């Protein structure tokens, strides 16, 4: 068995949904021991699905099964004192505590960083919330959509005559999860070097705003304010998804696709792709501003080629001409993709209730400590193992907690 990168790191996670659980999934897949503390009804992602046959079942929610690999599940109502008492015993043995609540909620539970730091001076308290733990909007609610809105990314996505458009797949939650994960790792590095825990405070809105490519920069350096224009880049057309004979491709001529003043007299890859090198003289080829403004004319130039060629044809030819065209796969296409199959990207896991599933595998490959994907836990399946086996409770205590609805 290969080594695990985070062997020995102990995590207690009361977060639900996507952002917090994705961060702790990355820790668990890297070898950290993650106790997922769920409310007795389960993480709410157990109710979001998708479900096989559309039949809701907390043990067969696709989102939950994807985001909670390799964790152990303990049910515990941390909103009541007896639940908090159990949680604190867990925290005494933990390196990292992860919460996905706003500060006001954590305060009412006595679980903010300020509440915990004196008793657990080495604990890293990681909190992911819609707008962060401080600042004028700290008490506000939110999700991926509100974060995309605040980041200026959504304003610039979509068509000019329509409403701004959110990117699919709740990306704001995932970006925040990644930022939470790397923040936790930075705090661990710091603790390794100097001792002492810390508060890792991630705002979903800021995590997404950190990804802004140049909307704020255009104002900060140019006084220019962008607006959405078919999601197009300010520095050039097409760089866009276009329809072809059998679907869609992304047409990206790249840095060298059009004629360049640095390469006078050299046939451009776009001209070669369209089999008409005379196009290299057209202002639509030589000036990016012209293409941007007269994009319908440019579309007319490329349409005959696109509508008579398949996606594979176009992308392979363009790539041979050193232009970074790309495919536009669906979920189904990805699952049967040869490239991903050869790289063994998807991990097949056997889940006791959901059966065999292909889950997205490691987001990066490590040569010595490859990430491992173990099935997500059943709700509360480690209650006895953790409470009796590790915290020293009696089995009868479990019954009492369970009868009171705490477990």
């Amino acid at each position, binding site marked *: 068995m290969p080594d695990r*990168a*985070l062997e020995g790191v102990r995590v207690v996670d009361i977060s639900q949904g996507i952002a917090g659980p994705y961060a702790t999934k990355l820790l668990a897949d890297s070898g950290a021991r993650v106790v997922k503390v769920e409310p007795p009804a389960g993480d709410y992602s157990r109710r*979001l*699905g998708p479900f096989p046959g*559309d039949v809701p079942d907390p043990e067969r929610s*696709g*989102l939950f099964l994807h985001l909670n690999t390799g964790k152990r599940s303990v049910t515990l109502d941390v909103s009541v004192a007896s639940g908090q008492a159990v949680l604190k015993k867990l925290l005494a043995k933990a390196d990292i505590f992860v919460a996905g609540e706003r500060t006001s909620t954590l305060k009412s539970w006595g679980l903010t960083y300020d509440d915990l730091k004196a008793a657990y001076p080495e604990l890293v308290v990681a909190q992911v919330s819609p707008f962060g733990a401080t600042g*004028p*909007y700290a008490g*506000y609610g939110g999700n991926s959509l509100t974060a*995309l*809105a605040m980041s*200026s*990314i959504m304003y*610039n*996505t*979509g068509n000019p005559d329509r409403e*701004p*458009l959110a*990117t*699919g*797949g709740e*990306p704001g939650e995932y970006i925040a999860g*990644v930022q939470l994960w*790397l*923040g936790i790792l930075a705090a661990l590095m*710091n603790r390794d*070097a100097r001792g002492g825990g810390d*508060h*890792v405070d991630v705002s979903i*809105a800021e*995590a997404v705003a*950190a*990804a*802004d490519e140049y909307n*704020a920069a255009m*104002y*900060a350096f*140019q*006084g*220019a304010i*962008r607006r*959405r224009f078919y999601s*197009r880049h300010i520095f050039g057309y097409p760089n866009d998804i276009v329809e072809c004979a059998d679907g869609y491709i*992304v047409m990206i001529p790249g840095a060298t696709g059009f004629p360049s003043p640095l390469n006078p007299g050299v046939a451009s890859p776009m001209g070669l792709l369209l089999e008409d090198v005379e196009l290299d003289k057209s202002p639509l080829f030589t000036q990016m*501003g012209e293409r*941007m403004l007269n994009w319908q004319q440019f579309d007319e130039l490329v349409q005959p080629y696109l509508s008579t060629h398949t996606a594979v044809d176009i992308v392979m030819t363009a*790539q041979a001409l050193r*232009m970074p*065209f*790309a495919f*536009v796969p*669906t*979920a189904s*296409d*990805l699952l049967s993709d040869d490239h991903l199959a050869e790289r063994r990207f998807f991990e097949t896991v056997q889940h006791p209730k959901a059966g065999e599933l292909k889950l*997205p*595998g490691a987001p*990066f*490959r490590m040569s010595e400590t490859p990430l491992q994907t173990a099935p997500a836990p059943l709700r509360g399946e480690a209650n006895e193992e953790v409470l009796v086996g590790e915290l020293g409770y009696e089995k009868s205590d479990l019954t009492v907690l369970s009868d009171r609805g705490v477990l």
Partner: protein
Amino acid sequence: MTAGPLPLEGVRIVDLAQVFAGPACTRILADLGADVIRFESPSRLDVTRNLILTDNDGMDHPWHRASYWVLRNAGKREVMINLATEPAREIIRKLVANADVVVESFTPRVMQQFGLAYEQLREIKPDLIMCSLSGYGQDGPMRDFGAYGMGLEAASGISSITGYAGGPPIRSGLSFTDPYSGFVGAGAVLTALLYRKRTGKGQYIDLSEQEAAIPIMGAALLEYQMNARLQPRNGNRSEWAAPQGCYRCAGDDRWAVISCSDDAEFGRLARAMGHDEWTKDDRFATVLARHQHHDALDAAITGWTSQRDHYDVMHTLQKAGVKAAAVLDGKEALLDPHLRARDHFDTIDQPMLGKRPVQRHVAAKFTRFEPKARRHAPLLGEHNEEVLREIGMSDAEIAQLKEDSVIADTPRIPVPPQIISMALKLPYDRYIEAGILQAIEPDYREQLGIAE
């Protein structure tokens, strides 16, 4: 906010990455305290030195006026070096021997051709951590594909579930997977550093930007496996909330998003909008009904939002306990009171460009240290001599390298820079007419409080 020592102090990073994803990764590591040394070739400048030029004017030094470059390279040092020469590679090897991490983003095989592949560098530095960021990974049939972030978002599947209902797939208004995989790459390097600290072992990280982003497709991938159904493109709506959408507000092209997860939240929305009766309306009373009559509900909500400023909509609804946010443009994001209060933008003093706000790349706030842009983004070859002296080279050796064009501090390009600046100048007046830009505000530095 305290500013104690940073977690990566003492960590040295050789940065051979280019453009967006790799530089975003190393910007994070620099902000966390690492000494990041970037390399750039005089005959092939980083293409982002062409992008979003200050005041849309490159003048006679376009490469020092690109905001896109500044954003991702603040806080790093730079050596400009011709990697096609053997002495240059020897310098890289010497630096690697004294470094902890190498980050690179060439297409696979390039590092091999340079004699700088992981296997070769590990001989010099056995506990080296090396992270390669590429579009499609280091092996597999698409390994040699050229890749840009604007295509990889689609390649990861995300574009297939992004778009208006019934319409074609749409890209996000940014090179989405670039920042995303930069963030992932930084976490991967931190993971490897923690492992090395415990075991003394380095390792190689193969990051495919396509794969890094596929987990965002998790629900869609499982939907397909469980029900043989592709998630439809559905605008801003969600199966998990109703109503959810983006609603027109008062003013020119102003919008706010609103999302209600359950009946209780919808009840608060109805009350805040002065329409308590909506909760008793058969079309809206339950989440199922709201999904079915979403268009009618959207029209009703727009009746309220369209009379109000987008920030009013956000604050009024949030204070009533409803998830809502103003849809901000780039200027509004820079001026937003909350983002400012939390120091999302650091002001750096960039040579020739003056004070400029640049966004944080580490989103987390800590109590013990502050991971911010600590310096300006380097000028071409700004740290040539400083870095070469650190690896023990004499002034005479450095002068010889300069003489031999191994190192440089001006680019080697076949045309005068003014020609490049002319080609890069975007016709912004016409962009405003066409609706690509809202406006150019000449007094923007006063508005941002960064006027000299």
